């Protein structure tokens, strides 16, 4: 799975996710990536989110929208809301990670696996890329 969240010069956020799913899957199984609110969500008032991981858990926890809701209704920061959401996935037995970016340019990339291919770029063009924990 791959994903991206971007913030443009006008201050607008967008989020996207794309995936090939699970090896050896049957019956037209679909994971969280294309489910708005589960694997992908974006709201200028809160954050853009793209998830990767065991889709069934992200669907049942409506992870991406939950992060936005925690920020909107409880006033949590992006990092706090994202940690709560990923911890809940972990507690239920799921795994994976997510990337999120808010309108102020704060970002977070939590995951509970050994690694996650990830990267970010600052407003002045500085690139950070990481793979391992």
């Amino acid at each position: 799975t791959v994903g991206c969240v971007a913030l443009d010069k006008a201050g607008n956020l967008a989020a996207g996710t794309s995936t090939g799913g699970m090896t050896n899957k049957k019956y037209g199984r679909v994971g969280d990536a294309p489910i708005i609110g589960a694997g992908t969500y974006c709201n200028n008032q809160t954050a853009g989110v793209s998830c990767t991981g065991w889709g069934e858990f992200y669907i049942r926890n409506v992870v991406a929208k939950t992060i936005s809701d925690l920020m909107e209704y409880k006033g949590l920061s992006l990092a706090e809301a994202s940690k709560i959401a990923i911890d809940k996935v972990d507690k239920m037995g799921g795994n994976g990670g997510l990337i999120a970016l808010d309108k102020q340019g704060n970002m977070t990339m939590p995951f509970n696996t050994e690694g996650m291919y990830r990267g970010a770029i600052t407003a002045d063009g500085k690139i950070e890329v990481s793979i391992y924990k």
Partner: protein
Amino acid sequence: KKYVMVIHGGAGTILKKNMSAEKEAAYIAVLTQALQAGYAEIKAGKTSLDAVEATIRVLENDPHFNAGKGAVFTHDGRNELDAAIMDGKTLMAGAVAGVTTIKNPISAARAVMEKSEHVMLVGAGADLFAKEVGLEIVDPKYFWTKERWEGLQKAIKEDSTKAVLDHGSKKSELFGVKNLDYKFG
């Protein structure tokens, strides 16, 4: 620091001891290229939607990642692709699922958002829609890669009934999903 873009290329059992220097360099190169592609859009004054689409297209076109060209195989030996995109300004959203002929599913998701009255299209209908709006259509063979095909054969050999997560762990097995302790994308 003020960030303007973040990306991921999947999470999972990714350990340095299992990664060759060449492969690690290749992953870093593509992730960097993807960030540069999106950043160029932002710098040119284009929208965050343009940046997201440009970035994800780079990752979809690279076989290292489980999306687009690098998609894993279903039990039946097909590549079924899913994608979604959402605009934070308008809360408009678009998604496609189970598509098999669209070279860049993220562009199809955006087309669903902008050129249809729907949010999600699936399967053959979504493939047809993408064709009708002028997106690049490819033979499903385009998505075939040796590594993914061998991954499917290995998964079937070990247990044909279980799907394999990119993100497996011992805990995953308790829930009936096979963990092969390596990553497919």
